[in-house]
């Protein structure tokens, strides 16, 4: 009873302070709002309009139509024309363009013999047919750009002769579930919940406790009968609500602005988010027992935040990482939450489908609380 009263006292005090701290209060709303709009529109893995240079050594009607066809794919955008390859390479080196499209002077000949032109397949013994019609020189350092241009490699050329493209039968049938239009935002927006919660939850809690120490309030508190666990619980409860508000902002706006479906079971989503918030808050508490200043708390938050963005599967597929990196990612609450929220929001998954992540987050929360309570001493030595 006394315990509950003390927890409520800390909770109420924290809410009062939070209400007066306009800056923090603003951050709670503005961080998800701005980042959602920024990343929702900005992050796009479908590469378009890559600036390229063209070196047209044949200068025929066909070459000009071919360039237009390539441009019409919207993958590339011709921004420069050069007469020789050296100039084009220079343009790549100086980053004015990402690739150069080189059309040889015997282009017409090559096109006619190319199987892509749709004049049937010439005998394979004919050496001429094995030659591509033109060449791309690509700045391959960015793999996304390189593979976008590589996708042009077997572009059908039959349109050059106003013929309908020949209907190739695909080797495999690919059915895209959950995001058939392949819009990046559908994948990014739920992931953003994880990134933003990781940042705000860890940062706010670790800073909230360290601030009491920095301002000297802790010296008063440790002289009172309050227990460390009571203090911690009272301090983190307000941030649980903040986390839920942020979840609402991101998913709500994500639905309105980016058409992210909210098909899943809302109760599972709420439960999963609460678990993740709990895990992040307990991590924040542990950090607060290590950090001696708010600056240090901030630095530690960044230390956790970066891998949470880069390794959790938010940016790059988890499966593509080396095994060791996968183990590291497994240790981060964000990784489990990414799986959970994408599962709940996009795939209509349930707690049962994702029970491993549920158990892991719950375990992380309890372990974090125990470590934090153990490390947080009411002694000064």
């Amino acid at each position, binding site marked *: 009873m006394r315990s509950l009263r*003390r927890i409520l006292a800390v909770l*109420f005090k924290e809410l009062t302070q939070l209400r007066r701290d306009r800056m923090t209060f603003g951050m709670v709303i503005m961080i998800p709002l701005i980042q959602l709009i920024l990343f929702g529109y900005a992050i796009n893995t479908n590469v378009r309009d890559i600036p390229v240079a063209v070196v047209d050594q044949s200068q025929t009607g066909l070459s000009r139509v071919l360039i237009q066809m390539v441009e019409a794919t919207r993958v590339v955008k011709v921004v420069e024309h050069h007469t020789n390859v050296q100039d084009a390479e220079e343009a790549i080196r100086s980053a004015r363009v990402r690739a150069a499209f080189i059309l040889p002077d015997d282009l017409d000949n090559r096109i006619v013999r190319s199987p892509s032109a749709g004049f049937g397949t010439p005998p394979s013994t004919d050496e001429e047919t094995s030659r591509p019609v033109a060449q791309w020189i690509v700045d391959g350092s960015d793999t996304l750009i390189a593979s976008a241009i590589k996708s042009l490699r077997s572009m059908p050329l039959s349109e050059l002769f106003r013929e309908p493209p020949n209907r190739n039968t695909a080797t495999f049938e690919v059915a895209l579930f959950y995001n058939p239009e392949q819009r990046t935002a559908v994948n990014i927006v739920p992931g953003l919940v994880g990134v933003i919660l990781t940042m705000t939850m860890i940062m706010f809690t670790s800073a909230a406790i360290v601030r009491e120490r920095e301002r000297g309030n802790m010296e008063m508190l440790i002289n009172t009968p309050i227990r460390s666990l009571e203090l911690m619980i009272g301090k983190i409860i307000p941030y649980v609500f903040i986390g839920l508000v942020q979840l609402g902002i991101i998913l709500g706006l994500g639905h309105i602005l980016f058409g992210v479906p909210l098909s899943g079971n809302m109760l599972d989503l709420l439960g999963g988010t609460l678990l993740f918030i709990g895990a992040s808050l307990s991590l924040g508490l542990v950090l607060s027992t290590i950090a001696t200043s708010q600056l240090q708390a901030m630095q530690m938050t960044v230390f956790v935040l970066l891998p949470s963005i880069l390794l959790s599967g938010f940016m790059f597929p988890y499966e593509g990482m080396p095994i060791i990196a996968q183990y590291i990612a497994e240790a981060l609450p964000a990784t489990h939450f990414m799986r959970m929220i994408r599962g709940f929001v996009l795939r209509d998954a349930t707690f049962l489908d994702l029970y491993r992540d549920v158990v892991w987050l719950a375990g992380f929360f309890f372990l974090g609380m125990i470590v934090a309570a153990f490390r947080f001493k009411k002694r000064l030595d």
Partner: protein
Amino acid sequence: MSRDFREQTVVKARGLTKKFKDFKAVDNLDLSIERGMIYGFLGPNGSGKTTAMRMLTGLLTPSEGSVEVLGLKVPKDAEALKYKIGYMTQTFSLYGDLTVFENLKFVAKIYGLRGSIQKKRIPELLERYELSELKDRFAGKMSGGQRQRLALAAAVIHKPLLLFLDEPTSAVDPESRRNFWEQLFDLSDAGTSIVVSTHFMDEAERCHKIAILEAGRKRADGTPEDLMHAMGANVYEVEGPDLRDMRLKLLALEDVVSAAQLGARLRVLVSRRVHNPEDWLTQRPEVRQATRISKVRPNLEDVFVTSTGEGRQ
């Protein structure tokens, strides 16, 4: 809180020592503080006052020695002790972004005071410490004296039997300091025992009993009167020209404990070893130019200087 505690000694410490690596902050300190008195720790900065006080409240674990406060072993029973003691920190440690009322309410709840008791106790404290009109003022926007009254109100909200005050008046003006001490005497009169640390002589003089600390060791203890009476030196005031020069010459003498200038006078402490100090001093060639030499009543600063050897540095 029930006042079931009837023992006469509220603080008992034996051989209390605190080491930080090789540095002894408190060295073999014995203390015995009786109920109802204001007990002062007098000492310069770094003499171990705060460390000693923190060991008494259980915030620091002693390296050696034993402490018993209000009949409870410290630090073993420190948590139970916290309901019975109040602690006022050296720097203001309540919340600057909460109002006076909110701060008191928070502390009251932390001590587990029930709503009905809070409703009575908080206005009572606001009234007593002249905070009623500042009730809705943010603590961070108040003056040093006002903050200190708030801190005292918060420290006594649960009616502690024993109150620890760590340099409570270092950030307030003399007027507030005087009022503050009146309030301490009110508390003491109502039965609260008080332990206060200070480096102000005039404050120490107000205490019922003091302990003089230097470099972690207790140099002397007793009532200020006893200490002045038992002081190992006689005090003279010398008037005359060229006091700075005279002071240096006097300090070179082994039997002069201290010589300090106070305006146009030189306050000279002559060791008790000198048999007839007045004659001895007046006949010294160092004071040949003096126009007047008179014996004066010792004050606590003289006691302090004599017992710590501060004057010779």
